[in-house]
C-alpha cells in the first residue's frame, strides 16, 4: 500500500462505513469538492466540523525588481488556499496514532472502558439514570473474559450478544456528548480568557482615571487632616521641620515643560517623570510663581518639570523624606487657597 489514501479507496471506505452504495459515495465526494470550491469563491472561508477550516488568504501585491534589467515591476496580488486543522485534529496529528478521542474502531477490549467513560460523562451531567448501572456491570464482565479466553462455552455466548446490542446504541450518544463537552470546555476557556483580558485592559487603561478619582479625595482629606495636625503640632513640629531644610531648593536642570491640559494633574506629571505621584509637591515647589492652588491650575499653564536628584527621589533618606513631607504640607496648604 502506498502512503496515500487515494480517492478510490476513500470512496470505497466511505461507502462501506456509511452504508451507502459506492455510486452515492462518489456523488457525495465530488459534490463535496465542487461545493467546497464554490463556497470558497463566495465566502473565502469554509468551516468543516471535525476537520478544519479552508480559507482563501489574500496575498497583497508587492513591488519587485526585474533581476535582469533592474526594472521596477509589481507582482500582482493573489489568493492562496490555506487549511487550518481543528484544534483536536491538530493535536491528534501531533501526538501520533495514540489518539483516543476519535477512535471509532474500538476493539472489544475497550468496551469496558467505554462504558465507564459514558457513566462518568452521565454522572457529570448530573443525570445518573437507572439504566446505566446495569450497563456498567455488563460490559465489565466481558472485558476480563476476553483477556483470558479459557472459560466455559456458556459464558462467552451471552457476553458477545450484550456488547453487540449496546455498541450501536452507545457509540452515537458517546460521540455527541464528547463533542458537547469539548465545545463547552472550549467556550468556557475562551470566556475566561476574555474576562481576564478585559480585566487587564481595564486595569491598565483606567489606572489613569482612578488616579484622577483619587486625587480629589486626597485634597479633600488634606483639607481636613492637616488642619488638625497643624493646629495641634504647630508649636513643636513646624519649627523642627523648618530648621532642617528651609533653604529653597534650586532646580538646576529641567527635564521638560508640560502644559496643563484640561483634566491633567500634578500627580500625573509626577508619575510620568518621576515614577510615582508622591513627588508632585516638587512640581508645585518648582512652579510656585505660577501656581497658587495646586488643585486648580489654569489650563495652558506651562509647568517646569525639574530634574530631581536620586537623593531627592529616595524617600528612605531622612532628609529627603522630611523635605518632601514639608513640601507636601506646604502644597496642601496652598490647595486651600482660592
Amino acid at each position, binding site marked *: 500500500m502506498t502512503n496515500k489514501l487515494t480517492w478510490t479507496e476513500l470512496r470505497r471506505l466511505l461507502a462501506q462505513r456509511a452504508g451507502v452504495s459506492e455510486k452515492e459515495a462518489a456523488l457525495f465526494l465530488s459534490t463535496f469538492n465542487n*461545493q467546497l470550491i464554490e*463556497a470558497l469563491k463566495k465566502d473565502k472561508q469554509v468551516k468543516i466540523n471535525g476537520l478544519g477550516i479552508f480559507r482563501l488568504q489574500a496575498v497583497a501585491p508587492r513591488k519587485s525588481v526585474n533581476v535582469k534589467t533592474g526594472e521596477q515591476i509589481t507582482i500582482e496580488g493573489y489568493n492562496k488556499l490555506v487549511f487550518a486543522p481543528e484544534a483536536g485534529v491538530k493535536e491528534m496529528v501531533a501526538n501520533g496514532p495514540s489518539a483516543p478521542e476519535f477512535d471509532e474502531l474500538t476493539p472489544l477490549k475497550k468496551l469496558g472502558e467505554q462504558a465507564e467513560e459514558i457513566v462518568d460523562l452521565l454522572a457529570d451531567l448530573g443525570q445518573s439514570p437507572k439504566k446505566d448501572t446495569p450497563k456498567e456491570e455488563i460490559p465489565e464482565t466481558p472485558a476480563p473474559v476476553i483477556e483470558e479466553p479459557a472459560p466455559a462455552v456458556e459464558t462467552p455466548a451471552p457476553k458477545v450478544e450484550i456488547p453487540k446490542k449496546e455498541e450501536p446504541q452507545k457509540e452515537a450518544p458517546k460521540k455527541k456528548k464528547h463533542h458537547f463537552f469539548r465545545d463547552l470546555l472550549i467556550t468556557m476557556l475562551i470566556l475566561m480568557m476574555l474576562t481576564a483580558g478585559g480585566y487587564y485592559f481595564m486595569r491598565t487603561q483606567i489606572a489613569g482615571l482612578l488616579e484622577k478619582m483619587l486625587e480629589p479625595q486626597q485634597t479633600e482629606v488634606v483639607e481636613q487632616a492637616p488642619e488638625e495636625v497643624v493646629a495641634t503640632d504647630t508649636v513643636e513640629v513646624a519649627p523642627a521641620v523648618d530648621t532642617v531644610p528651609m533653604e529653597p531648593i534650586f532646580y538646576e536642570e529641567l527635564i521638560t515643560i508640560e502644559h496643563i491640559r484640561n483634566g491633567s494633574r500634578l500627580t500625573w506629571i509626577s508619575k510620568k517623570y518621576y515614577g510615582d505621584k508622591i513627588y508632585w509637591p516638587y512640581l508645585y515647589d518648582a512652579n510656585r510663581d505660577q501656581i497658587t492652588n495646586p488643585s486648580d491650575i489654569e489650563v495652558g499653564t506651562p509647568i517646569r518639570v525639574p530634574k530631581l536628584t536620586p537623593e531627592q527621589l529616595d524617600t528612605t533618606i531622612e532628609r529627603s523624606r522630611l523635605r518632601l513631607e514639608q513640601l507636601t504640607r506646604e502644597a496642601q496648604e496652598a490647595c486651600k487657597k482660592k
Partner: protein
Amino acid sequence: MLTKELIGNIAEATGLSKKSIEHLLSTNNAIMREHLVAGKAVQLQGLGTLEIKERKERTIVHPRTGERTVVPAKSQLVFRAVANLKDELKKS
C-alpha cells in the same frame, strides 16, 4: 461558510437529504482523520492533498532577551491544493 450551510448546499446539489449528507460528511471526516493520524496522506480529487509533514526540532532566539529555546520536533497537518485549483482561486 459554516458546515451547516455547506451540508445544505451539497444536499441541494445531490438531491439527497441533509441528514444523510451530514452522516456521509462526518463518516468521511472520521475516515480521513484515522488515516491522517496513522501518517497517511489523503487525496481529495480536484482539491488537493491533506498530508502530514514532519517539522524538525529547531532553536529560536527571543529577540529581546536573547534567550534560546528549543522547539521540539512535531508533525503538522498541511493541505496542498492542486495546481488547477490554485490558479482558479488566484483570480477570484
